């Protein structure tokens, strides 16, 4: 026991003996988590809604009532920041990455769309010029565009000048439409009703018809009513885990450095058990990583108003499990590594992949479905989920149990692999 305590004490003494290192260890995660939190809260961009707007360029080569209506609808969309530009400028902007998507409405689009709407004619194309590195934004804009086009075309058919002309044209040509006779008569009746409706409502048309038949009432589900989502809670969880795992790497490479410096020869020549030697490192690693995590969250609470909206005991459990997991990860690094320098690079890459897949950097929904499934084997994901559950999600102790259990399971696996692969012999 004396050797165990002495080894733990040595690690703590070395850590706290280097003030510069202590400050950096605590300050760097705070700085980076603050940065990420600010990005995802929209701070610095004039508020959340403005920060969330997606820049889209529109090339309206049609200039019809329908195309103008589409552009007007997109301009009113709070999620989009529309600028109307010529085609060359739009293509250059997408190529340079200034904008993710440009919508190209070709000449004749309005008429063709109206005909397709009324009489099953060949639908026209809308062009999308997009940045292939930003496919998530492309998917969102494709969905929004569908809504705006349907609304613009539908309204024009029931109220606009171009729509009236197209209804008249469709009625004149209805016998040419390839439909069964009874269906053709039904369509004729429908179009005549639309024609009468348009005549009844004069040249100004009728507003409110053929619009999107719903509005959205958005409610962010957080810990409880009237508690806003605090993006810093998530960023401090994600970055906290990242730096815990980095601390684990430091622990592992520290052991490798001790081995290179001959210190393990001293340890191994003493009557000290293997458990004491590795357990002491796991203990000191757990204490130091736990301290780092708690200081980070303490800062987030004081400065950014992050709160443990869920179970405090659950938060403590998850934080402790995270620290044990990071420390045992460090032991595994020491068991698998050969030299400290090379191991640091490889382990650093592994941690970056782990935290990225764990959702610490970007939301995991942008990953392919198979990858989202695979992330259950990433300990960082459980850590982030557990901390999120106890902070901004405001869930109870029960929600902490599974992440805690899984992380302790990872710790056991890391520990077992360490015992298996650790090079005990010091030639």
């Amino acid at each position, binding site marked *: 026991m004396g050797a165990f305590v002495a080894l733990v004490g040595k690690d703590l*003494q070395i850590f706290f003996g280097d003030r510069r290192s202590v400050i950096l260890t605590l300050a760097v995660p705070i700085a980076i988590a603050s940065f990420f939190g600010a990005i995802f809260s929209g701070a610095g961009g004039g508020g959340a809604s403005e920060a969330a707007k997606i820049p889209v360029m529109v090339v309206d080569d049609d200039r019809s009532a329908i195309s103008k209506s589409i552009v007007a609808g997109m301009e009113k969309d709070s999620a989009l920041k529309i600028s109307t530009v010529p085609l060359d400028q739009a293509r250059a902007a997408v190529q340079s990455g200034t904008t993710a998507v440009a919508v190209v409405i070709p000449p004749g689009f309005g008429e063709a769309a109206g005909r397709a709407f009324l009489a099953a004619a060949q639908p026209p194309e809308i062009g999308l010029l997009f940045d292939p590195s930003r496919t998530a934004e492309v998917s969102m804009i494709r969905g929004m565009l569908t809504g705006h086009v349907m609304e613009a075309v539908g309204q024009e058919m029931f109220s606009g000048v171009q729509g009236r002309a197209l209804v008249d044209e469709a009625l004149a040509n209805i016998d040419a439409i390839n439909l069964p006779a009874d269906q053709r008569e039904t369509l004729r009746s429908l179009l005549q009703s639309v024609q009468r409706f348009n005549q009844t409502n004069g040249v100004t048309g009728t507003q409110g018809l053929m619009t999107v038949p719903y509005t959205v009432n958005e409610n962010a589900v957080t810990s409880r009513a009237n508690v806003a989502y605090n993006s810093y809670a998530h960023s401090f969880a994600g970055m906290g885990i990242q730096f815990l795992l980095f601390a684990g790497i430091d622990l592992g490479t520290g052991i490798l450095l001790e081995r290179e410096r*001959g210190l393990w*020869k001293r340890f191994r020549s003493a*009557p000290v058990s293997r458990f004491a030697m590795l357990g002491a490192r796991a203990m000191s690693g757990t204490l130091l990583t736990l301290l780092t995590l708690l200081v980070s969250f303490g800062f987030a609470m004081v400065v950014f108003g992050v709160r443990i909206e869920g179970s405090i005991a659950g938060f403590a459990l998850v934080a402790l499990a995270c620290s044990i997991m990071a420390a045992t990860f460090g032991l595994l690094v020491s068991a698998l590594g050969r030299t400290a320098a090379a191991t640091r690079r490889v382990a650093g890459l592994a941690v970056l992949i782990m935290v990225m897949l764990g959702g610490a950097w970007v939301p995991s929904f942008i990953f392919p479905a198979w990858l989202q499934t695979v992330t259950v084997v990433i300990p960082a994901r459980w850590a982030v989920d557990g901390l999120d559950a106890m902070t901004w999600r405001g869930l109870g102790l029960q929600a902490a149990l599974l992440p805690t259990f899984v992380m302790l399971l990872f710790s056991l696996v890391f520990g077992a692999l360490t015992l298996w692969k650790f090079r005990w*012999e*010091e030639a």
Partner: protein
Amino acid sequence: MGRLERTVLVISELQKAYGSIVAVNGVSFSLERGRLLGLLGPNGAGKSTTVSMIAGLVTPDHGTVTIDGVRLSGDTDPVKRRIGLVPQDLALYDELSARANLQLFGSLYGLSTRALAAAISRTLSLVGLADRMHDKVKTFSGGMKRRLNLAAGLLHDPDVLLLDEPTVGVDPQSRNAIFENLEQLKASGTALLYTTHYMEEAERLADRIVVMDHGRVLADDTLSGLRSRRAGAADGSASLESLFLELTGRSLRD
């Protein structure tokens, strides 16, 4: 034969192989209290592996290490308390003071707080670093670190001290100081096993010399005994280096 002459360390038929490479092959020798055995051999001869097996760092494939007749076995074997190791590397924490280093290494041997404090004071005085005990090791010269490295192996007052090239890279003054420390230890009854490439060190310090090569013991004798065995050495004044080269050959090993 008095107490100081009593055999304390016996190694018998030690063997160790790494895959197809046999590092140590049937090595046997013994060491008495108050004596210094010089273990010599070219690089790759098996000296370090032999010392590692005696220190418990490496498990032998075959053979035994006994201290006063008690066989060494297992990580936590109390017999380990009777062995001290001074590794070739400066196995010290630069970030800690000399005292903190010794406190840590002494704690590994289960010394009580009081006994540890006394041991730190004793060993630092022995190596002439008592006035620097509170200074961080990173402020020490190479020679001072070597002396502290020696002190760390002596804290628990071992019966057998294993020294693996303990004077590498030190100036003549520090080397001489270390030699004087070793003479004191011999006089106090500690058995010393000393590996080195410096023949003049072995000539000066060793009561007996074991020459190893290719994992085997080629010679185990006193310096005068080795000289007398040399073919054609009429005056018995051949240098240890010439004897060593005669035994191990002149081909390069690295």
